[in-house]
């Protein structure tokens, strides 16, 4: 194609007056997001980056891996282990239970009013975390909680005599599920609504049983959303502080409570350990969230 004379003229002979206009406009365009960027920098990005860099610096600002070595201490490793276990357990159970509930309202053939009711309640419960949630579970399954008393009185079972306590791994998971399940319901309901009834019919008319349909069609379609949502649930539980702190005080050794105590200076104050704990948490939550983002991008691409 021969070069157009017009474009040639523009590149070789720039007009003096034309240049400032567009450049100024471009600068003004960027000006529009400066307040937001400044805010994000000051109150989100810099503080986080400061900790991440700090984890690799000694008191003089030189590079060191010494702080990360602190993560290998017995009680720190234990804390990470328990945190990972609590998060994984509450994410997996929450994902399964949330999926079952969402499936029941979308494809279960239930009366129509149940779906909006469940979604509204899930919106409330997913945000009803923290200290009040801990209170609610203490009132339910604490030593004098209603369910504990009912079980003692009518079923003759004392949960506490079997070794159960709310201030434990199982108790914490059971409590976390109160916001994990609704979160799963909120995330996975749209995905379930995206399952088209024609897929089931196509599978049927090709000779497939319900099992064929679930294994070969429905589960592969839902897998990215379900896995992604589970990762989000995991990160959600891993970063939670208030519920666990209000429920167990410092008696359960999980990472967030360890870090909380570290910051408050309740225990022997070692700022280096704080940096290392923070870095470990950032790495773990970032990995699971990156997994979530990657999976949801995959889902969207397929839908388009």
């Amino acid at each position, binding site marked *: 194609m021969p070069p157009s004379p017009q474009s040639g003229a523009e590149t070789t002979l720039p007009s003096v007056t034309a240049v400032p206009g567009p450049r100024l406009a471009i600068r003004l365009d960027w000006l529009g997001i400066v307040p937001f960027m400044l805010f994000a920098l000051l109150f989100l990005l810099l503080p986080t980056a400061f900790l991440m860099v700090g984890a690799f610096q000694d008191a003089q600002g030189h590079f060191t891996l010494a702080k990360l070595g602190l993560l290998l201490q017995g009680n720190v490793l234990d804390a990470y282990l328990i945190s990972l276990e609590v998060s994984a357990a509450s994410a997996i159970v929450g994902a399964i239970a949330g999926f079952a509930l969402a499936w029941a309202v979308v494809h279960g053939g239930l009366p129509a009013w149940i779906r909006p009711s469940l979604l509204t309640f899930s919106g409330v419960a997913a945000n009803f975390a923290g200290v009040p949630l801990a*209170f609610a579970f203490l009132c339910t399954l604490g030593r004098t909680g209603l369910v504990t008393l009912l079980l003692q009185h009518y079923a003759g079972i004392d949960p506490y005599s079997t070794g159960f306590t709310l201030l434990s791994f199982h108790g914490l998971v059971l409590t976390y599920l109160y916001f994990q399940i609704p979160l799963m319901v909120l995330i996975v309901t749209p995905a379930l609504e995206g399952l088209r009834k024609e897929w089931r019919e196509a599978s049927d008319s090709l000779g497939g049983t319900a099992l064929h349909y679930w294994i070969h069609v429905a589960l592969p379609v839902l897998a990215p959303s379900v896995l992604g949502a589970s990762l989000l649930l995991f990160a959600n539980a891993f970063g939670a502080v208030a519920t666990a702190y209000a429920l167990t*005080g410092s008696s359960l050794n999980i990472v967030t409570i360890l870090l*909380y105590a570290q*910051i408050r200076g309740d225990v022997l104050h070692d700022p280096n350990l704080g940096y290392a704990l923070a870095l470990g948490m950032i790495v773990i939550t970032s990995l699971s969230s990156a997994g979530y983002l990657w999976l949801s991008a995959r889902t969207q691409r397929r839908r388009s």
Partner: protein
Amino acid sequence: MKPASRAGAWLAIALGSLYFLLPLIATFEFSLRMRRESYSLEAYRVVLTDPGFQSAFGYSILMALLTVITSIVLVVPTACWIELRLPRMRPVIEFITLLPLVIPAIIIVFGYLRLYNSSSWLPLTGNERATDLLLICSYVTLSLPYMYRSVHSGLRAIDVRTLTEASESLGAGWFTTLAHVIAPALKSAILSGSFLTFAVVIGEFTMASLLNRPAFGPYLQLIGANRAYEPSALAVIAFLVTWASMGLIQVVSRNAAGAGAKRRLPGA
């Protein structure tokens, strides 16, 4: 639908209801037990007349309102600007607004304490008013995912570009357009984001506790550690506040849909 799978669905709903309603019932029942001889609202009376409750709850409401206002002022113009002038920055902004879901609050506040301590370049933790400001900023950060998503989907629904072009062709400036055309059209989206922010912030514990501010969250924790029946009454109150915020979101979005339908009627 086969009867077997419908029975399974009912079973799931029944078990779910049991798990979700029992703690609510138990908490309410517990909150009535303060007087040994009979059920009473004594716990509520004690809590509501406690000056500590009043000041902590009042402080948190004030912080929540300031957070909502700051969040709106920060997010709405930015989201509009991105939609109109800098669409290529959208992925970056979206990523930033998702970060508060990724980075735990305790990490963010730990960063603040390191970065803005009293001997730093910006000693925001130096005095109480400055710390209040820092607390509000931390809450705005927490609210970014909710507020931005809500406003963004609102903008998607109204075709902001055409509205702006129409307004500008009638001689309106950028600010007039934002205040008189876009903001009213976004009202329900902004209100939804605001109520959600309010619900998240009102009982927040981690930020307030570590910044050492006298908010509702730390107050709840303190009462929980020292009293028997008051915590359950407080939990009921907190649940009602969350429920009210979510209920208002429903009302707001239903009204928006209703008003839209009504507006369309004469043309149809």
